């Protein structure tokens, strides 16, 4: 029961040293390749964009204090 892996395209990405370092760190922490990190980031970004376009807001809530802070997206 293989899932149907969508066909993929390749691109070159230009990152600053700081951005590359962040990508390296995320890749190590999450134990996935840099490509997989960027794929995750794109999916989340696209999800946020769709919901903001629908008039929703994105908040972070502190686990114990329950204090909410709005995340500013571009």
């Amino acid at each position, binding site marked *: *029961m293989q899932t149907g892996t969508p066909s993929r395209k390749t691109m070159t990405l230009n990152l600053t040293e700081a951005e590359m370092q962040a990508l390296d760190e995320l890749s190590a922490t999450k134990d996935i390749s840099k490509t997989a990190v960027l794929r995750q980031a794109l999916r989340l970004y696209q*999800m946020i964009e*769709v919901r903001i376009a629908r008039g929703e807001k994105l908040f972070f809530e502190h686990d114990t204090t329950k204090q909410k802070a709005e995340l500013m997206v571009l």
Partner: protein
Amino acid sequence: MSTRSTVHLHDRKAERLVEATLVDGITRAEAEKAEAEWKPYLEEQVKRMEAEGVPKDRWPQHRHWDWRQKQEAADAYLAYRMFGIECQSQMQGLMLVLTAGKDCRIESQKGKPMAYVHFLAAAPWNLATVAPDPRFSLVGSILVATAINLSIEEEFQGRIGLHSLPQADEWYRNSCGMTDLGRDHAVHDLRYFEMTPEQASEFLK
């Protein structure tokens, strides 16, 4: 765009395996057709249960799920993948999986990404708890295996997680071998289950 591959379900009546199709990328038309077939059957069985005096806690707990709405909602997002198993021109099971933004809670995998099974259901006529004469088995197992394969494909090493309805707790715990992390007050007090790469590998054997 959807892709199709061959899987096998167990026909309970004929006592043999039959060919079925795993659909990756359920279309709106397929979700509408499934909903149009599942809903009347479910309603009929709930009426029967009511007439027979079956206690309400044994009625199918997912009877309010609307797969047409779920497909429509998920279709807008790259992060969602919807799968189905088709056999004898009918949808025998459906599953919606989230592939971004969910990390493991279990200590050995804490913070590592996983595929989150948002919804999974076999067609009501396949459920022994609903149908007097259930038709196919293996639907749930194939869908869980599909979620694991998706997790592997996404480099999550087979890690999956889900919130279970009470009627399915035992199946996820004992048949799938997932770890029960207890009730999650943030999600309707449902029990939360996770599968580690080792458990996933064991399940796929």
